[in-house]
């Protein structure tokens, strides 16, 4: 009897184990942060034959995810009604952003329309995950959109730029500068050095020029390095994108400039190696930093903190130059509703919705002619008059590892462990190996 009981118990255990291996169906009306599977979408479509499902993934721009989600749901409700669409909006946090897309697309739970930044787009194009938009862009669209060229990659129109802005600018706390007898934010490399030295001498408790070398993400290079590279006349990648183009005299000049700010002129302190972007902004708000390079969005908030600030778009050496974000909407290749997805993308970037987006969520310059300028007034002239010097990153597949290596080597250089020449040569060599793989 005991024997038979034991066998029955083992059998039940086995059965339970195998039963739990059955994949579960995700409820079709789930609009929480969990992704909905495409198979659930198609089962929903079969249940409700009239409505087509579209899934939209956007990052957060408002102060909380719920704000972004409700914004897009409210403003796209007309589109959904007119096109008989059941639109699911999911807000994807910036942390692990690429991972979310990779696993989502692979598992069939990815979006129809998503938001990507330039560093990740080429890799997904090469994986066949992004659909070209050429057949969906009309002549009227080409005349309306201002930055379609930024989405023209590998000979096709892969993206529809939705955010082009948030330039990295040189910001100065005018009260601190005035205390040291300085009346203007420096505009050239030499002026920055001279200003930094005066600040060191006259206001030793103030950080002359703060840089967030402790920021973990490679995006920190957008304010830490690329502006100076472009100002020296250099480029990030070679024309054929086979390696970093940092084995040039221009790149060495830019790198040496940063190295000298740290070790020769003592304008960047050792503590900068531990600063993140948030640390620098906090120090700026506490009026402990005289000069720093930050993005326009955070710069515009300084006035609210009672900071008397001014800015220049960029320093000038051989030329000007600073980073500007160019993020875009994409359509995934495995979208079942490409026509509607394209229509959704155009609706999102229409003048009406972009105006509301720039008023309610985040202020950026217009991406099309059918929208007025709705960014902060202080940056209007900068975007209008300096377009040629507002640079975006090149779309290069496999660039993450190259950027990562560059950033790590530059950090080692700023810690005094590598010379500028070594930092650049190691980065170029590594990029050659990685990009050839």
């Amino acid at each position: 009897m005991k024997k038979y009981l034991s066998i029955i118990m083992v059998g039940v255990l086995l059965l339970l184990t195998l039963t739990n291996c059955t994949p579960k169906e995700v409820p079709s009306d789930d609009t929480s942060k969990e992704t909905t599977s495409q198979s659930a979408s198609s089962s929903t479509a079969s249940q409700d034959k009239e409505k087509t499902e579209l899934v939209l993934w956007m990052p957060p721009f408002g102060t909380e995810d719920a704000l972004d989600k409700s914004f897009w749901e409210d403003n796209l409700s007309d589109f959904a009604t007119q096109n008989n669409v059941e639109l699911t909006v999911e807000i994807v946090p910036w942390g692990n952003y690429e991972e979310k897309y990779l696993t989502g697309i692979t598992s069939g739970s990815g979006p129809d329309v998503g938001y990507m930044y330039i560093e990740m787009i080429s890799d997904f194009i090469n994986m066949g995950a992004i659909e070209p938009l050429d057949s969906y862009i009309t002549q009227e669209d080409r005349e309306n959109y201002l930055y379609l060229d930024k989405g023209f990659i590998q000979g096709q129109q892969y993206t529809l730029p939705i955010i082009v802005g948030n330039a990295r600018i040189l910001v100065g706390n005018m009260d601190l500068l005035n205390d040291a007898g300085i009346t203007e934010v420096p505009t050239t490399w030499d002026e920055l050095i001279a200003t930094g030295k005066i600040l060191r001498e006259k206001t030793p408790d103030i950080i002359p020029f703060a840089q967030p070398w402790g920021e973990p993400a490679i995006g920190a290079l957008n304010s830490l390095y690329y502006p100076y590279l472009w100002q020296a006349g250099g480029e990030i990648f070679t024309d054929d994108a086979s390696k970093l183009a940092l084995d040039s005299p221009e790149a060495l000049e830019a790198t040496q400039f940063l190295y000298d700010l740290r070790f020769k002129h003592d304008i960047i302190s050792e503590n900068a190696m531990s600063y993140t972007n948030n640390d620098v902004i906090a120090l700026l708000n506490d009026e402990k930093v005289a000069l720093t390079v930050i993005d326009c969005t955070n710069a515009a908030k300084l006035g609210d903190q009672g900071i008397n600030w001014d800015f220049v778009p960029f320093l000038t050496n051989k030329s000007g130059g600073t980073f500007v974000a160019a993020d875009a909407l994409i359509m995934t290749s495995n979208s079942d509703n490409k026509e509607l997805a394209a229509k959704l993308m155009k609706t999102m970037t229409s003048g009406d919705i972009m105006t509301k987006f720039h008023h309610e969520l985040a202020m950026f310059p217009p991406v099309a002619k059918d929208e007025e300028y709705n960014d902060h007034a202080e940056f209007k002239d900068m975007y209008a008059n300096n377009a040629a010097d507002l640079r975006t990153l090149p779309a290069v597949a496999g660039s993450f590892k190259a950027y990562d290596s560059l950033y790590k080597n530059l950090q080692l250089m700023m810690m005094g462990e590598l010379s500028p020449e070594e930092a650049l040569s190691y980065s170029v060599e590594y990029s050659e190996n990685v990009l050839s793989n």
Partner: protein
Amino acid sequence: MKNQQKQALYGYLYIAPSLILISIFSLIPILMTLYFSFTDYNIIQAPTFTGLKNYIRMLGDPFVVSSMKNTFIFTLFVVPTQTILSMVIASVLAHKFQNKLGGFIKSSLFIPVISSTILVGTLWSFLLATDTGIINTFLALIGLDKVNWLGTKFTSLLSVCLVSIWKNVGYFLVIFYAGIMEIPKMLYESGQVDGANKYQQFWYITMPMLKPITFLVVTLGTIWSFQIFDLVYVMTGGGPGRSTITLVMTIYNTAFKEFSMGYASTISLLLLVFIVIISSIQKLLFKDNY
């Protein structure tokens, strides 16, 4: 014979559920990882066989070399420190503080264990901030210079090690405490009769009796140390430079930022080999007399 075969069959049936689970969630993924390590694979497209290309690349990859070095240094510092610390504290609590205060201390030391690593890392990042952190504020108050805890090569890795020890010591303390409570008191009484002081009792009685538990603690500590990721990810992101990048972090970046699952699989196997070798050595070292 027939009876023995029946017994064996029942044994296999009993372990079948666990065997199936281990096969599905451990063995098969390891075999798949082995296969993918010989391919160029980005998850979205089918893998392309590339032979030993990933292994050759790994040998000269400065990220892998740095992360291996950091992981070993981390393990060599953290495991002995947390083992000895937890053993000593457990011994003191077991012999001197078997009261409410001892219970409070044990509970307090266990709170970091059950706290989220992300939360712990974020909190300590604030505490260790160079200009605004409480630690440096305290140091300044007592007349010492501020330390750039997360901004130099040496102090950043040291900071991560110390936070990891702080987080884990409570867990191993509880294990050692339970083990110490199981040691027959007559051994200590005999030791006292023979004239052994408390340090000799600890060395000649407590430590040998705790050998199986020490083996468990060291093995667990080693495996966890080799798998360190989230604490480093939050506190330093692997920087500054490559000062704190670990093997698991390199695997994560390779898989999910570089989209090279094949190469990430290769590095994962390297990690597996290290853990197996070190666990085997530990088993040999702890083999005698238990």
